[in-house]
């Protein structure tokens, strides 16, 4: 029987939420790694029982965890993330140069076909890969060595590599995004990279259309149409139909086009979800109403989804890695908030139910579809 497993990372540990295909009743397990920040937990598409988790604290740094049994038991694996060669410097907040320093793993993206291969996006921005189940990590340094690397600057959350998309039709094509450098793509399995930010405009920059420096918050892709990308930028919701070579603004009638997460419906590549928040200085839902916005037209025309979501006095945020979709039919959509709620919609966003109300602030949500 099919079901769904949600992997939830929070400020104070990880949780595993499971349900059958109805997605009505949920079993809640956790906290795992209590007291640690869990930026991300993700499962292998090739083996649903193989999970990877990023565990960190300011006291003890980075620990990596792996489960081979769907989250029942965990073992710490390798946590040494060394930049290749002489790390050099990147731009600091005040415009000076600052040494590259590893801080934490933000995002884990397992290979599509090999449970032992997993990519890690880290702060300060770099992409690492393990091919032995997380024991050893090697930087794909062609990204950070890009000639623009010294111009990359951190966003408010740090210089983090937070998005890793692997093209299912051609796994040597990967797209990543960094706050606040922008989006980059490789077509040769990670050896070489190029910025793909044409069409992005950031009024915070002296040159609004410069090659790098854009604060991309998240990029989403439909596996059935992998060259169509949707981006939630610092401001603006964007769309590309050529794998990022060019971008068009599709914010349309959104009440605000500032936000963090973005997701694409599992079966409808033109159906997109965002969670607008007031502005870059407020980070709360407009009018105190928590609304997911859905476009069925690939952007520009958006409808508010409110059924089951708080429509007064709500001032939570939804972080960039905290929204996910399952692949059941009808498709399910999930997100977690900084107020500790995890919401589920088993009907593509038409209605929502809070699975839990009082978790620690949610950093990430990943939905695994179980068969």
């Amino acid at each position: 029987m099919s079901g769904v497993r949600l992997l939830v990372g929070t400020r104070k540990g990880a949780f595993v939420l499971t349900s059958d295909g109805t997605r009505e009743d949920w079993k809640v397990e956790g906290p795992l790694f209590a007291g640690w920040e869990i930026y991300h937990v993700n499962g292998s598409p090739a083996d649903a029982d193989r999970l990877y988790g990023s565990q960190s604290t300011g006291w003890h740094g980075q620990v990596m965890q792996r489960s081979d049994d769907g989250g029942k038991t965990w073992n710490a694996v390798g946590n040494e993330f060394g930049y290749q060669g002489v790390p050099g410097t990147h731009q600091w907040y005040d415009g000076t140069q600052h040494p590259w320093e590893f801080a934490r793993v933000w995002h884990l993206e397992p290979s599509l076909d090999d449970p032992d291969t997993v990519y890690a996006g880290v702060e300060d921005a770099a992409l690492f890969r393990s091919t032995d189940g997380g024991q050893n990590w090697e930087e794909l340094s062609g990204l950070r060595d890009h000639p623009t690397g010294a111009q990359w600057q951190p966003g408010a959350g740090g210089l983090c590599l937070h998005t890793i998309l692997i093209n299912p039709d051609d796994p040597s094509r990967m797209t990543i995004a960094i706050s606040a450098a922008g989006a980059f793509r490789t077509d040769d399995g990670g050896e070489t990279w190029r910025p793909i930010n044409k069409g992005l405009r950031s009024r915070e920059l002296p040159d609004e259309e410069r090659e790098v420096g854009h604060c991309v918050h998240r990029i989403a892709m439909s596996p059935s149409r992998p060259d169509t990308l949707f981006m939630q930028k610092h401001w603006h919701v964007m769309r590309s139909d050529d794998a990022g070579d060019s971008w068009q603004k599709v914010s349309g009638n959104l009440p605000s086009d500032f936000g963090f997460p973005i997701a694409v419906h599992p079966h409808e590549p033109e159906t997109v979800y965002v969670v607008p928040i007031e502005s870059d200085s407020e980070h709360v839902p407009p009018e105190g109403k928590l609304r997911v916005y859905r476009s069925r037209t690939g952007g520009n025309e958006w409808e508010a989804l409110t059924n089951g979501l708080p429509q007064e006095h709500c001032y939570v945020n939804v972080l960039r890695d905290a929204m996910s979709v399952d692949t059941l039919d009808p498709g399910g959509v999930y997100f977690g908030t900084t107020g500790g709620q995890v919401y589920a919609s088993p009907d593509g966003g038409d209605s929502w139910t809070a699975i839990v109300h009082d978790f620690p602030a949610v950093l990430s949500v990943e939905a695994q579809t179980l068969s």
Partner: protein
Amino acid sequence: MIRVVLPQHLRTLAGVDGEVGLDAQERPTKATVLDALEEKYPVLRGTIRDHGTAKRRDFIRFFACGQDITLDREDEQLPDEVASGKEVFRVVAAMAGG
């Protein structure tokens, strides 16, 4: 035997309940005790001092015989009471928050 007390998160990570016992050393120092600790519990590598540089993580302190020895020279011998196991070598995660 050298007795080491770890902060709670590291006890959990290492899977130990109380003190950690390490083989006695002739002239133990902070560095040699931490080397032995990481050898016995590889999962602790990187959580007390950085990989590669072995630099102490910012919020970690070391105590012996009630004294903060964090800033003592790395090669300075630990007190005889620690070397003999009469006193513990304490790894402390700084109190923070509010």
